[in-house]
């Protein structure tokens, strides 16, 4: 049985980043602190440092995502690593090669690190359990399970604007059921000591027993947004906007879309976050997305530094 947390070695050292669940606060904070100094690097004229010179990082994207892949690519390049992008959705998998066949082939090309995006929950765990002990795996999103680097950059952004986690009220709003981002955010927030984490969604978009993850459940924005310091909006996938999950995008926007009016129910200095790409007019109104309280663009900037931090910490943790 595979019941050991496969991210950590026997000494508790981070070998892979697969999920924020089960990681001690000290590791999360070490990543955020390291990212802090990478922000300094990204503000220089020369944005490149030689830390991962000679390392090969493979972006293994079994599910297309130009955006996320690009941020990992920039992060790796700024660390001077060699980056190889593979869009597996259209190559090996269609020839009948299995996921692990692909990984074995690339490992034979002396990969040092895999950045994995896959439509199935657990795909990154499977790869991490399979690779040589000196190869590191970063989960860039697996099914509805986890997206730890997104959650970490969100934590970085929250700390940047709010300084301390221990007196915050945070609301995560939208399709919690299908969201890997929400799950990773919840685990990171509770680990970092945020005392009040809420999820706000209609019942069709909430998984069973979600309160066991340490959140309070709300179905009504006017109640759920009261005294909130941080609003974390989630993307609503197109295919969920109509049918059995929701009647229409319009109705969703009316009751759960973030407008200036609804935002005014939260604390006056609350910040608004979104992992992107946004559906304006569905989960968020343009006036809010582009408004004073929005920190959506800084999130993207910080995302590079956070991914640089994760890559360099993993590369430095040799088994």
């Amino acid at each position, binding site marked *: 049985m595979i019941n050991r947390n496969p991210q950590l070695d026997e000494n508790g050292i981070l070998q892979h980043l697969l999920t924020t669940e089960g990681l001690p606060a000290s590791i999360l904070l*070490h990543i955020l*602190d*390291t990212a*802090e*100094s990478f*922000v*300094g*690097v990204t503000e*220089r*004229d*020369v944005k*490149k*440092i*030689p*830390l991962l010179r000679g390392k090969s990082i493979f972006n293994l994207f079994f599910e297309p995502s130009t955006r996320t892949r690009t941020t990992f690519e920039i992060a790796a390049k700024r660390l001077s690593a060699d980056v190889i992008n593979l869009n597996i959705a259209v190559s090996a998998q269609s020839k009948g090669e299995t996921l692990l066949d692909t990984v074995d082939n690339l490992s034979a090309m002396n990969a040092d690190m895999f950045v994995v995006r896959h439509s199935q929950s657990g795909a990154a765990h499977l790869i991490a359990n399979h690779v040589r002990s000196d190869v590191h795996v970063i989960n860039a999103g697996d099914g509805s399970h986890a997206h730890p680097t997104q959650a970490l950059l969100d934590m970085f952004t929250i700390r940047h604007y709010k300084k301390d986690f221990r007196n915050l009220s945070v609301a995560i709003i939208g399709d919690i059921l299908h969201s890997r981002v929400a799950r990773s955010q919840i685990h990171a927030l509770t680990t970092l000591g945020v005392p009040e984490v809420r999820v706000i969604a209609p019942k069709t978009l909430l998984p069973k027993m979600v309160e066991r993850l340490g959140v309070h459940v709300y179905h009504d924005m006017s109640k759920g947004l009261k005294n909130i310091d941080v609003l974390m909006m989630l993307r609503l996938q197109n295919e969920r906007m109509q049918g059995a999950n929701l009647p229409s995008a319009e109705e969703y926007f009316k009751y759960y879309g973030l407008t200036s009016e609804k935002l005014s129910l939260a604390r006056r200095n609350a910040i608004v976050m979104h992992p992107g790409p946004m559906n304006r007019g569905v989960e968020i109104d343009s006036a809010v997305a582009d408004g004073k309280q929005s920190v959506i663009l800084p999130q993207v900037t910080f995302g590079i530094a956070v991914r640089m931090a994760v890559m*360099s*910490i993993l*590369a*430095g*943790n*040799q088994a």
Partner: protein
Amino acid sequence: MQLPDAEILFKDLAKKIKNDCDKNVALIGIHTGGVWLAERLHQELEIAQPLGTLDVSFYRDDFEKIGLHSEVKRSTIPFEVEGAHIILVDDVLNTGRTIRAAINELFDYGRPSRISLATLVDRGGRELPITAQYTGIELTLPADKILVLKREKSGKLSLDLYDKNLPE
């Protein structure tokens, strides 16, 4: 063994730099001990340019061996590096590898006209062709000992010697 008084070494070092440089020189301290020393020098010598700091963790050549374990500080260079005369300040000069990393990092900010090196203690043991232009003292120490600069709450500087294998 009896270690020299860091405050006396500091005074000597400051005097040497003062005799040699004008006030337009820029100081950059290397984390952590080098920054404490640079702060004191910056004050003592009444340097006009703001003080810079470097954390060379991202440029070290032993990353493969030790990784990024300790907290990395942000490097801040609050002046134009291009064409500047810069004095790098570090507490102890030993193999020269830290200075190599610092010079590399500095060049990612621009091309200085000149870089000099100031150190409180030169303990020998160089592995790279690097020399300090300003030195508080030269000491020969056993290879299994680590020499560090400490700063008390009052700001007073002192030297301390550890066994390599013992944690601080």
